[in-house]
């Protein structure tokens, strides 16, 4: 009886099948992303609007003749205060977007009702989180590129550093920025809502990492806290790489710290994801809104 009724599955498991599934998640995420036209606003308008308030404040405080800029130069070693603010706010926006987009990627699937149908498949679970992050990385790179062009031509910012070193900093920052996003996504799927936590994290980054001012402005205890935040090193390295001609040696320490933070946050993200996945199977959290 069983031989007559045996239906042969078409599935062929293996590493390449998991890679194919990962690529399918990337394509799905990208296709859905571009079908919501609001991404154009995020890409072209938000990067200009967000730092504008800080730039105009800085301009007002520098005095009518701009004499205050000398003080800024003495503190930072840079003359390009618009670029200084633009890079800081860009890194803040990056982390903020990752917390919302990656951190809420599984939760959004859960609310859409598609998380369970993904979870029913034999695909490597982490592929869903990783796959939905890759289009986000691409859109973020586009955003940085467009922002750079906008700062150059709208604000006249002179990026005197190296494009390649700037890209290297972005690459080095990815593991820690996204590792935090993965950890966040795992927590959100269990807690369902973590807006307060997003506000807390981005508030900490805003105050402690010096997105618009040098860390020297902070009291000593706050500077000690800053050293434990990877965004501090991302901002410093990216400013150095994009706005000065100091070269690789000036960012080597930052890159080393980012590698360490990257390993830590990726491990934390992966560990939390696996704990969440197991816990969700025990509690039924995957299907709960």
């Amino acid at each position: 009886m069983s031989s007559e009724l045996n239906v042969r599955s078409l599935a062929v498991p293996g590493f390449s099948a998991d890679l194919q599934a990962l690529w399918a998640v990337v394509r799905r995420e990208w296709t859905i992303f571009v079908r919501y036209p609001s991404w154009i606003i995020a890409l072209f308008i938000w990067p200009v609007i967000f730092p504008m308030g800080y730039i105009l404040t800085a301009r007002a405080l520098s005095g009518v003749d701009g004499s205050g800029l000398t003080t800024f130069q003495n503190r930072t070693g840079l003359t390009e205060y618009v670029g200084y603010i633009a890079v800081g706010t860009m890194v803040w926006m990056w982390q903020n977007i990752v917390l919302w987009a990656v951190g809420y990627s599984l939760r959004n699937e859960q609310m859409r009702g598609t998380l369970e149908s993904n979870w029913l498949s034999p695909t490597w679970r982490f592929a869903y989180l990783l796959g939905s992050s890759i289009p986000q990385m691409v859109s973020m790179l586009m955003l940085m590129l467009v922002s750079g062009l906008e700062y150059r031509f709208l604000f006249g910012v002179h990026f005197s550093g190296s494009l390649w070193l700037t890209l290297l900093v972005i690459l080095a920052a990815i593991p820690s920025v996204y590792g935090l996003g993965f950890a966040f996504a795992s927590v959100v799927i269990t807690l369902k809502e973590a807006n307060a936590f997003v506000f807390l994290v981005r508030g900490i980054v805003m105050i402690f990492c010096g997105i618009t001012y040098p860390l020297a402005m902070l009291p000593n205890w706050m500077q000690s806290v800053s050293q434990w935040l990877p965004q501090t090193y991302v901002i410093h390295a990216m400013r150095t790489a994009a706005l000065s001609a100091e070269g690789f040696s000036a960012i080597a320490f930052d890159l080393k710290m980012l590698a360490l933070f990257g390993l830590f946050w990726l491990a934390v993200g992966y560990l939390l994801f696996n704990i969440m996945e197991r816990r969700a199977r025990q509690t039924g959290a995957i299907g709960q809104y």
Partner: protein
Amino acid sequence: MLDLAIEATQLVKKFPARAGTGDKTAEDKSAPKTKRWPFGKKEPKAMFTAVNGVDLQIQRGEIFGLLGPNGAGKSTTIRMLCTLLEPTSGTARVNGFDTVKQANDVRRSLGTVLAGERSIYWKLTGRENLEYFAALYHIPQAITKKRVDELIERMELKDRANELVEKYSTGMRQRVAISKALLARPPILLLDEPTLGLDPQAARNLRELIAQLKQEGHTILLTTHYMEEADQLSDRIGIIDTGKVIALDTPEGLKRRIEQKEVIKLEVTGWHAEIGDKIKSISGIENLMSHQQGEADLWEVNMQAQNSRTAIPRIVEHISSNGTRLVNMNIVKPSLEDVFIHLTGKALRD
């Protein structure tokens, strides 16, 4: 030796009881104390037992219907079988694989359609959905297109396959969801309320498809609210109530359990509970149920009787002496619904 597609042994699933559910009978106060870091000890958690020792043996090639009212444990059982949930205790094997220890082998053996229509992406087209899920189910790229085309053709989606799913009707979305389940041609299908929300024609088409899939050799576990559907499609039916399988047999076997009984169906106006109590007190009358039809004062009253000839005069007497008017009366053979009422004391849609 039986060649089993699905085997569950003493499957139990408990969840922490929600505050204010009021379902004291299902709570397990003996649950161990739990700790939550970093806040220290918590009070012992009351537990809700959704599935309470389910045993199932489903043979290859059969359609097995799992019937039960809302909250009976059907969906929780399905979720344990398809690896979305781990049982609190007991074991389940699907296609010979353990649902906890060999979860990926189980997933490869299954095509699952869960209740509801949001299991696919509305911002993708029908074709994009199927191509996406084909990759998740590890179907080689070389055959994906052919397989997707086959299913699009079979499900009569060809004309609209390249439109966004958000523009589809409920029936079309359900067809995409079923195509998704069939993509990898899995030997076993779990269909959780597959016809829920479909119009009669779409539901009929889907029932025909389910029958065809059985002919092709698929084993099908079907949960449904619709008795006629279960009766028409299932080789065997398990009736589940309060987390337990309380009866398991062929549809005919189940009906034989109460074939010595007759079912009296009344239509009356001016019905009230007091008359029901009086009729229930008549010897040989059981499982009386009444419900109002629409907004008019017309009630349908069903009951099971050992002997309708002796019961009917007394029923009529109670009705006429209380100002209630008898509009219609029928004596019919027991249906699967009557079996269900006999076993559980409630209607399936309760």
